[in-house]
């Protein structure tokens, strides 16, 4: 299927690893020019080199803290300078810290009765402010083109908070991000801009591997047992691949998906039970 993405300019935050990297690669494969943004320069360059080897001249990097409004505006400026006006913005910023050696300092996992109330603010900055700032910075270009695709990589806990994981921070902030995107969808639809949200399930990413290791320690179980019990809870009886997230992301930012907006769509092998 021709998706009409040739020459479109896309920014992908969290673009150096996991789902963000898979989306960047998939968009480049469709002929889009991609700007990878993330905090750490080195993984960014590694990811860009790999994409550039397959799709030469279609990738740029911008090292930035996507929670910082000015830094996000600078990423848009980098994209404009290298490729032109931005048409696609994918927000893919992680929340609370699982492995501080890879992800830096920040609030960790916790429950309603253990987390500090101030940690809700930090999670809000990471998940909601970053999504808002990228949409806000990119929509001027999109409005001028009367075409835009804004996408957030959210989480299934936006609709169904997990009971068995210490996930209160995303449980609180993810629904607000899903709501924000629904609101932006309504406001931006007259300009030809769609705004959608993917609800990530158990996807085989580096971050989720860290999470299973952490859970294994917490529960004093082997990692394999943690993974097996999680897989047993998935109707499809397997974890998802980042490329499966990227496939839906690519379709949602395509020409054909222009009438799909304001949606939160799970990619989770059937975990989500709500109607």
């Amino acid at each position, binding site marked *: 299927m021709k998706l009409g993405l040739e020459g479109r300019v896309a920014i992908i935050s969290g673009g150096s690893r996991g789902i963000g990297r898979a989306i960047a690669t998939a968009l480049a494969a469709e002929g889009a020019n991609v700007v990878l943004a993330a905090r750490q320069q080195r993984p960014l360059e590694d990811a860009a080199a790999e994409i550039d080897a397959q799709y030469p001249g279609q990738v740029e990097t911008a090292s930035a803290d996507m929670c910082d409004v000015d830094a996000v505006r600078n990423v848009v400026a980098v994209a404009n300078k290298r490729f032109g006006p931005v048409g696609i913005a994918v927000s893919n910023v992680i929340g609370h810290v699982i492995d501080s050696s890879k992800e830096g300092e920040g609030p960790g996992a916790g429950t309603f009765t253990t987390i500090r109330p101030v940690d809700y603010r930090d999670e809000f900055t990471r998940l909601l402010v970053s999504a808002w700032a990228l949409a806000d910075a990119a929509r001027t270009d999109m409005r001028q083109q009367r075409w835009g695709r804004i996408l957030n990589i959210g989480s299934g806990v936006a609709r169904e*908070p997990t009971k068995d994981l210490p996930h209160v921070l995303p449980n609180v902030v993810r629904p607000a991000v899903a709501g924000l995107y629904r609101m932006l969808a309504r406001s931006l639809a007259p300009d030809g801009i769609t705004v959608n949200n993917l609800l990530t399930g158990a996807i085989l990413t580096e971050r989720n591997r860290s999470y299973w290791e952490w859970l294994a320690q917490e529960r004093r179980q082997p990692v394999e047992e943690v993974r097996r019990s999680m897989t047993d809870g998935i109707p499809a009886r397997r974890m998802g691949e980042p490329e499966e997230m990227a496939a839906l992301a690519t379709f949602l930012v395509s020409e054909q998906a222009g009438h799909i907006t304001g949606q939160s769509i799970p990619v989770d092998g059937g975990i989500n039970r709500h109607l």
Partner: protein
Amino acid sequence: MDLGLQDRVVVLAGPDAPDRTAGAEALSAEGCRVSTVADFGDAAAEVQRAVRDHGRVDAVVVYLPLRPDQPAVAATIEDLYATWSWVEQIAAAFRAAVPGMAERGWGRLVTVITGDVKALGEHADEVGALAGLGLLGMHKAAVADVARFGISANAVLRDAASAPAEVAATVAFLVSEPAGYLQGVTMSLDGARSPVMF
């Protein structure tokens, strides 16, 4: 109906006086001992004060103010943080009350928010709905954690046409003894404005 609220100690918090007054009247009429506070930032301290005065707090009720025509697309970062600070402050107030509730095996957390969390209205309080959605998520996380101690967390969804007295009656029901098995639910008072089924 006997709501079983005689001598229950309830703290009500929220910046809009009609909300607090109507809630306090409805709960007082059922025999509750109520105290009210306008600023969410003072709510945790009010819970602690009520514990000192009455020996316990049985319910915390918070009213997010209704601010129509607040589109998220026009918000500033400062607006977003100012509204989100309510979530942080309300969490602190809930947390101040929860250990005592868990010890006694009885507690009620009730949040009154905009119906825009379920379906965006024509004059939506979008920025307020972001905080409302956060609190709905917190309710779900809270009941996973503390429902086993007889504590519930539920929400009333209202819009500009909802009468404060009717909101207060629904709040009183959610605080009541017979509402103990309602956990993490939303009750909409919208005169059928919302077109969504669930």
